[in-house]
């Protein structure tokens, strides 16, 4: 191993997208409701209440285990993790400790050198989410804090990887692959607020390991790790030691900060949960039928739609995106796929990210129409982008949404192609206004032609096709010469 090799392992907590909580019948659909409205004696931890395991959550977790080739353990069990915290209603979390649901398995990610790489998994287990504290003011100086138990008891799956990743980027890719697979399995909704939490272990070879807690976004993982690599390398460069410690990621500042050492001295006093029986579900594995997963879909996109490897990777990287692409091209897969793949993967995603928009907001039919306009050469690429931006902004601002064709008409973006008369006028103007460029062209300087085409584009506000302009100008200048 090279010196200062980065070594990363992740512990990923995802909320399982079940209808009811892990140990009671309360609904998990709490995000649009007031605090403490989705609660009962069980998830409030009222004295005398007892947990009843939600079978669906175990089935969901087993889908994940099967998809990642994990071994489901013959007898697993729940344990209590004991610690005091105001958001923890029972003062213990029901989780799995020495007998997790599944062990082993792996994920394939695209490694830094663009080869596929296996990241081994240690284990997968199921546990309950605690409640949530809302600080009045900030955590240190606020007057008081309020507790919302709506989240208490939401099922979580914890997926622990081996320290197999070698860069923050690989960690990000691991996470993306994990998210995509969980979504394809229908057990996870990455767009729900607070549905993901990551703890990352990072070390430089030969140095102590640092645990970073409290990462709640996909980008955050890469950022936190990148910060930590720099911090640790700087320490070593200055001849200092990296301390073995737990650090918190501060999302807003993009930095990690040492946690108080007291928090590391937790003794969770795990012991088997006496109110739940051991779980014997190994025999379920054979009955779980997995849907098409990201890798298979990627290969299918290449074979069926002729997508490039990169486009196929991007398009299958999220369930919504992949579904969106397929809906877009459904009317004419052969004719639309290549152009639609390029537009969705290279342009649309960027525009959505820029606006922090979900692809859900968009109707795939509108993109089909846009792609058709482009394919028929009715608008230029530049106009295509403009139409797309108008559409997205209308969605974002909750304005009435126009169809792409209507936007083209309203903004007069239709290509000038066919309107030969108008184009003739423009070209004539450009030639007469730029005698020097015409001379240069005649003298054999090719740059001059590009200049003239650019001037003509300006006059048509980008609506003309550069190729057509080029041809027509050459034609015209040839004529002048004659």
């Amino acid at each position: 191993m090279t010196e200062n090799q980065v070594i990363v392992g992740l512990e990923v907590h995802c909320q399982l997208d079940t209808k009811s909580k892990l140990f009671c019948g309360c609904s998990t659909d709490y995000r649009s409701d007031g605090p403490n409205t989705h609660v009962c004696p069980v998830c409030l931890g009222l004295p005398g209440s007892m947990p009843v395991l939600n079978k669906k959550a175990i089935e969901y977790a087993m889908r994940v285990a099967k998809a990642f080739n994990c071994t489901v353990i013959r007898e697993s069990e729940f344990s209590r993790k004991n610690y005091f915290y105001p958001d923890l209603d029972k003062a213990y979390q029901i989780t799995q400790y020495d007998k997790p649901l599944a062990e082993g398995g792996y994920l394939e990610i695209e490694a830094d050198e663009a080869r596929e790489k296996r990241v081994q998994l240690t284990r997968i287990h199921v546990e309950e989410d605690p409640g949530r504290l809302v600080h009045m003011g900030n955590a240190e100086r606020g007057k008081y804090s309020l507790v919302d138990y709506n989240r208490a008891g939401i099922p979580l799956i914890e997926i622990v990887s081996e320290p197999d990743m070698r860069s923050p980027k690989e960690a990000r890719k691991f996470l993306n692959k994990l998210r995509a697979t969980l979504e394809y399995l229908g057990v996870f909704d990455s767009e729900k607020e607070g549905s993901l939490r990551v703890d990352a272990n990072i070390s430089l070879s030969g140095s102590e390991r640092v645990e970073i807690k409290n990462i709640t976004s996909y980008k955050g993982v890469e950022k936190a790790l990148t910060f930590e690599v720099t911090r640790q390398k700087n320490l070593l460069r200055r001849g200092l030691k990296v301390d073995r410690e737990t650090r918190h990621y501060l999302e807003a500042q993009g930095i990690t900060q040492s946690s108080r050492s007291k928090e590391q001295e937790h003794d969770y006093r795990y012991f088997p949960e006496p109110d739940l029986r051991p779980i014997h579900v190994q025999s379920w594995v054979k009955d779980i039928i997995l849907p098409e997963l990201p890798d298979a879909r990627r290969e299918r996109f290449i074979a069926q739609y002729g997508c490039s490897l990169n486009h196929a990777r991007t398009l299958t990287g999220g369930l919504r995106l992949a579904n969106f692409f397929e809906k877009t091209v459904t009317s004419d897969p052969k004719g639309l796929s290549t152009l639609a793949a390029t537009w969705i993967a290279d342009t649309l995603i960027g525009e959505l990210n820029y606006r922090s928009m979900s692809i859900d907001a968009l109707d795939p039919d509108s993109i089909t129409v846009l792609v058709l306009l482009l394919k028929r050469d009715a608008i230029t690429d530049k106009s295509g982008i403009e139409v797309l931006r108008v559409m997205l902004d209308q969605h974002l601002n909750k304005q009435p949404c126009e169809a792409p064709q209507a936007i083209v008409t309203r903004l007069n973006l239709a290509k000038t192609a066919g309107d030969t008369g108008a184009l003739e006028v423009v070209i004539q103007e450009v030639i007469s206004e730029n005698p020097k460029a015409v001379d240069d062209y005649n003298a054999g300087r090719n740059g001059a032609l590009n200049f003239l085409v650019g001037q003509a584009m300006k006059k048509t506000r980008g609506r003309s096709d550069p190729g057509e302009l080029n041809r027509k100008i050459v034609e015209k200048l040839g004529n002048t010469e004659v």
Partner: protein
Amino acid sequence: MAEHRIVFEPEDRYHAFLTVCKNATYGSGTLAGIAVAVKDNISTKGIETTCASKILKGYIPPYDAHVVSLLKQSGAAIAGKTNMDEFGMGTTTENSAFGPTLNPCDPTRVPGGSSGGSAAAVAAGMVQMALGTDTGGSIRCPAAFCGIVGLKPTYGRVSRYGLIAYANSLEQIGPMAKNVADVSRLMQVIAGYDCRDTTSYDHPYTQTPDADITGLKIGIPQEYFGAGVDPKVAAVVKNAIARLEELGATTVPCSIPSMEYALAAYYVICTSEASSNLARFDGVRYGHAADTKKSWHDAFREVRRAGFGTEVRRRIMLGTFALSSGYYGKYYAKAQIARENVKKDVTRILSEVDVIAGPTMPTIAFKLGEKSDPLSMYLSDILTVPANLAGIPAISVPCGMVNQMPVGLQIMGRSFEDERVVDVAYAYEQAVKQ
């Protein structure tokens, strides 16, 4: 369904009750109009439920325990909530934060515990039946000390949903009454599967007691008549067993060698579970409110220090220690092994005999304040904890007197053969009545 009321205003000379429901309603059913007292660690909707602890003073559960729902469905009137050792931790009911209950047979003595209030309420004739809970003898001990009948059912036979947990893996709710027939009637109502307690089994109890015990084989473990057992108590119990022989039973001497470690294992397990169960009492949701001006850590500590009594704090500390990293293997894990050994011994014996018989308690009821050191109090549980460790049914039935105080005969049976231990107790009770 027509709703009726009883006026329940007993003179509570022995401090059996923490809450009295003066106007208890009742419906129709097998227990129509019968006043049933409920131990104060069983949740009752709208009725304060404190576990005899200051930390839960003022806590009014928003839901009924499963057994309470069943009582109401069968027409019983919930007469009130009975006194107990705080959270069930004790053998005398002196550990109540609201003062001890007195033994109706001799008010200078304890009623036993931890279901002392329920036993006293029945013994004093204030109610016909009561619910107790038994973690290590808490139904059988006060039944023996107060001269009534008490059954600890097979683990899982009665739903624990709504029972404020002390030691989940050991405890069961069970019936208490003056006679075996009433214990059996109450058991019919409360037994059965409950989807909210996944450790409960689908084993309803439909038995009407049958006094015919011809051919019954009774195991007599030597440990139940050895050191620590008052010879006068042992003699009374031996007489009772001789009576069972006269009724057609045969006796077989046997031994439970694992009893040597049973008590230690029991106290490690129950305190470990308790340390976790009682951690939720932090002043955030109910009970004493935490001081929001302090850091949560300080506020929790203050609430818990002020709210829990000495014995509860002691057991939380013991359990916390037993589960700590580095000690788990030495204590909790070892205790589980000892527990398995007790199960094995009991299973072996019960494959050769039908029931095991012996004294319920090694002595008669103590004088108030007599057991001042915790260890000697713990030792008095030695004859009752094996049934809890093994999960088997066990009943205590009055079988005579020593120094004008009642003595209990304990009958233990195979898992889910609660009917059989009830039959044996019934056979004895009917024989001595004639």
